[in-house]
């Protein structure tokens, strides 16, 4: 039996009277690309805030490998790479300075951090921009830097919250391709939250989140078959009883 990289067990979360998550349960296996698909307001960002310990879990349990995010948050966060929906780079610092700051926040020595930063920047083809201010990068380049930063401490799980929002079609495709490659090259697991159906691929693990509840969870083919649909778009519409699919051609 393989220990899941991420396991979310009966997690509920409320903001006062508003229930944002209701008994959410799913697991992400190692070296898997899992898509958390949901419309805006489904609870994806709340779930990310819980996985990253920005909020404490009110009920249920979240584990990264065997580390409980609530009880052993340090160990859990240590093997977690995060890309948030909003930009979190310091625009007034250079790309390299942002990376070195992140490395320090993980206790990585300066020399080692410099080496790793050079490596990750080479992988995203931005080594020549290392000393440019982040402010001068394009939206797609900033996203790539954020992904590079999330990989700097060599996490085993990478979670990305709507990372392609606001990017053009080419940048979206580049980023998606790069993150999928990481599974093959680094063996990490990825949890990719999105509301864009065209970002789901045939071999992905799909988790459909709607109004704070998981409606379906499993390999894409099984999710589609289970609801008698012909494709992911149809499956999503049937599951959510929604005619309107948000921005799949954004």
């Amino acid at each position, binding site marked *: *039996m*393989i*220990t899941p990289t991420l396991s979310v067990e009966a997690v509920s979360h409320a*903001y*006062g009277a508003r229930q*944002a998550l209701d008994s959410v349960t799913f697991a992400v296996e*190692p070296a898997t690309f899992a898509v958390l698909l949901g419309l*805006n*307001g*489904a*609870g*994806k*960002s*709340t779930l*990310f*805030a819980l996985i*990253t*310990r*920005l*909020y*404490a879990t009110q009920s249920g349990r979240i584990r990264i*490998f*065997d*580390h409980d995010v*609530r009880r052993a*948050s*340090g*160990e*859990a*966060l*240590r*093997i*977690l790479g*995060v890309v*948030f*929906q*909003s*930009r*979190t*780079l*310091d625009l*007034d*610092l250079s790309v390299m*300075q942002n990376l*070195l*700051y*992140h*490395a*320090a*926040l*993980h*206790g*990585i*020595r*300066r020399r080692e951090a410099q080496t790793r930063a050079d490596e990750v920047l080479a992988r995203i083809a931005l080594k020549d921009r290392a000393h440019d201010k982040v402010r001068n990068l394009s939206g797609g380049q900033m996203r790539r830097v954020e992904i590079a930063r999330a990989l700097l401490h060599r996490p*085993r799980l990478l979670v990305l919250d709507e990372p392609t929002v606001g990017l053009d079609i080419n940048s979206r495709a580049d980023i998606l391709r790069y993150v999928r490659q990481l599974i093959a090259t680094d063996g990490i697991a990825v949890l990719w939250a999105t509301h864009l159906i065209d970002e789901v691929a045939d071999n992905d693990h799909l988790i459909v989140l709607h109004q704070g509840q998981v409606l379906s969870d499993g390999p894409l083919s099984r999710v589609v078959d289970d609801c008698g649909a012909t494709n992911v778009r149809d499956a999503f519409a049937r599951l959510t009883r929604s005619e309107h699919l948000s921005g799949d051609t954004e």
Partner: protein
Amino acid sequence: MNSTISDRQRAISVVSPHSGFSPGQFAICLKGIVWRESLRFLHQRERFISALVRPLVWLFIFAAGFRQVLGVSIIPPYQTYILYAEYITPGLIAMIQLFNGMQSSLSMVYDREMGNMRTLLVSPFPRWYLLCSKLIAGTAVSLLQVYAFLLIARFWEIGPPPVGYLLVLPALVLCGLMLGALGMLISSAIKQLENFAGVMNFVIFPLFFASSALYPLWQVREGSPLLYYICEFNPFTHAVELIRFALYAQVNWLSLAVVGGCTVLFILGAILAYDPSRGFLARRGEAAGTA
């Protein structure tokens, strides 16, 4: 069963070769946070200039104007009559640190709105340690500003005895931490950047004017006993007095106790406010952004 356990152990050993952080790694984290705050400060030249201009305007214009109006009798720690400019210098030093603390608070609100704060909060180091490191970084920046101000004032022959420059350092560190922690606590309660103007009106001005920064408290008492008691209870008054006495190689024990106590209180409050399970932020559902 055995193979399941061994698989699990192998998986864990692969992902976490060692647990916890060494003291060296804690030091790297602190150094990184101080380095980042210093870089930000140096990049914002306007912030540095305004941090200096503000107290210098008070020193060279306000103090000169009121020199003949406001007489200062011999009060501890002074052993002789002093110029009014000399009297308000400790208050202006504390003002620099007060503004710096509030500036840090403003930048925390901004970072939270922009998302930068999450970079800090998802670090695997303990939350209390990250916040204390940020406080230390803010205090270090305020020290730069204070010594730059003291250097300029020295050219106008306003300043303490030479040894005071060294002896005031621990007082500055403590006051910087107290005012930074106050700013951090306030930042946790401010939801939007636009609300920050209220901080100016309801925090900075009352703290500064209801203190011994600009006038000795015995003079305040003659004018208004009520205001005198308010000043006495104002922690900023004690920050000013702690700095004033330290500049003249003396310790004001009462002020030391008040500033020390308030520092601990404010830091604990800020840690609590930023704690994911108890803090204000989680209750407001703020960090998640759009869900």
